[in-house]
């Protein structure tokens, strides 16, 4: 095994000018603003959480490609231990957040004048699956906050997650008034027991989860909600797993691959004259990777040409026939006429 040469940056006796030049190159890392912008764009494009954080070269060398092992983790599963610790931390943070939100939900409502009308609108007779995806985060927040607040409440029967009918509660007047007031964060997914206890306006029970939740995180949605006997859903806390609540958002649009498709085809085109076999292989990869490409016709034309160059007349003719049948009005028909004449020539 040949020993690797020392890098110029590591050479002490190297030319001073050369070394400083190399150091200038090494220090030219991405500015934080660029990283932040790219992270934002990736987040919006991919639908995953991407954020930029300053990293020193030392941190980077230490981490390399593997996740940092937690001090207590075993050698066999350092990544798993880190994952568990991370999940626990996130769970604690979420629980704290919900607790604060729950307390604030129990305070007398100071809703703006416009809000009751909005709640009225929600409570009006309408199909049970009317909860729009736009409302889901708010609804989730409200139900979760209420669930945690009730779970931490010392009042008997205050837990909305109890499947048995709750006894009549005798809350202090101030709190009862507060609960009976329509709130901006009235949940759509709620227990009929809790509804009864709070004497809220009559509303249709939700008989199906919002589609956005089902689509976003079916596992969480199934775990979090279970239909009761009357078909309504009771929301359960999801913090036990330390997972984040599913947020409603539109599914990420598929990345635009048109440029990649074009480049791949250009590569095949370059190979066509001197290496038609390679061109065919590239076209095959293209067809596998982009079956419904916007350059499908161009790809087929290149296949015919490659077969022609390879002097595989039979397949070229078959491909030509198939092309004409599929794209009878294609602009490439004229272009292929010459190839056909040559193929048909004895």
């Amino acid at each position, binding site marked *: 095994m*040949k020993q690797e040469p020392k890098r110029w*940056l590591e050479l002490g006796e190297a*030319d001073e000018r050369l070394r400083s030049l190399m150091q200038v190159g090494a220090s030219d890392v991405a500015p934080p603003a660029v*990283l932040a*912008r790219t992270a934002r764009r990736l987040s919006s494009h991919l639908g995953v959480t991407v954020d930029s954080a300053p990293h020193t070269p030392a941190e*980077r060398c230490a981490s390399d*490609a593997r996740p940092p092992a937690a001090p207590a983790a075993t050698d066999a599963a350092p*990544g798993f231990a880190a994952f568990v610790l991370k999940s626990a931390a996130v769970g604690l943070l979420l629980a704290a957040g919900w607790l604060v939100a729950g307390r604030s939900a129990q305070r007398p409502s100071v809703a703006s004048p416009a809000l009751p009308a909005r709640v009225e609108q929600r409570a009006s007779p309408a199909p049970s699956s009317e909860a729009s995806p736009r409302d889901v985060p708010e609804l989730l927040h409200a139900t979760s906050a209420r669930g945690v607040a009730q779970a931490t409440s010392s009042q008997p029967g205050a837990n909305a997650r109890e499947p048995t009918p709750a006894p009549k509660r005798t809350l202090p007047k101030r709190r009862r008034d507060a609960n009976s007031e329509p709130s901006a964060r009235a949940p759509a997914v709620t227990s009929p027991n809790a509804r009864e206890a709070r004497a809220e306006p009559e509303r249709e029970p939700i008989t199906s989860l919002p589609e956005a939740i089902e689509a976003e995180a079916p596992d969480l949605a199934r775990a979090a909600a279970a239909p009761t006997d009357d078909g309504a859903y009771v929301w359960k806390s999801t913090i036990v797993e330390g997972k984040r609540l599913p947020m409603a958002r539109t599914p990420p649009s598929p990345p635009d691959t048109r440029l990649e498709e074009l480049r791949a085809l250009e590569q095949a085109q370059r190979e066509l004259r001197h290496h038609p076999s390679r061109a065919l292989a590239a076209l095959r990869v293209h067809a596998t990777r982009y079956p419904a490409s916007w350059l499908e016709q161009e790809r087929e034309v290149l296949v015919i040409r490659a077969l022609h160059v390879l002097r595989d007349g039979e397949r070229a003719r078959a491909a030509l026939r198939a092309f004409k049948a599929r794209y009878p009005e294609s602009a490439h028909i004229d272009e292929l006429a010459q190839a056909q004449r040559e193929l048909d020539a004895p």
Partner: protein
Amino acid sequence: MGPTFKKAEGATHSPAVPQAAPSLSPNIPPLHELDFNRLFQEQAPYVWRALRRLGVREADCEDLLQEVFLTVHKRLAEFEQRSSLRTWVYGICLRKALDYRRLARISREVHEDRAAPRLSEPNQEHTLEVRRARSLLDAILDTLDDDKRAVFVLFEWEGLSMAEIAELAAIPVQTAYARLYAARRHVRDALRAREEEQP
């Protein structure tokens, strides 16, 4: 004749059916633990640097950086863990940079696309000096061909081993060494020539 870099990022696999390769080593985390966010935080600053040194203009670097990580995200499930994740990311970065230079017909003569420093900027002299040095470095690197430049950049700045570079470039290790030594000679000579021109 352009450089011959193989499609190590999984050209034989269809991205429509991503297949998670089984872990070859118990020390390598399984794929589901690979955190894209952490990967971005760790690698993005250096991928950006590699793109710059590989000849991507600063104005286009941000877009290329995004493209690299879009590809990383798309192909993460196909990562076969035969090399380190970092090497794999650099492979994607290298191909993107080469595609950029080859297809966009980019020919950079002078690197003056950075904004001029403001007069009130502290350490202005130092900033100007660094900027000049970077321009000089890029100008010298531009005189290298893509093959040698890739080996030089990945070895000298990005810290990849010669074996990793040879694998990325689909060339024998000896060829990688030959390219590195040739590139070093070229850079040293070019620097000396410029110093003689502007003493």
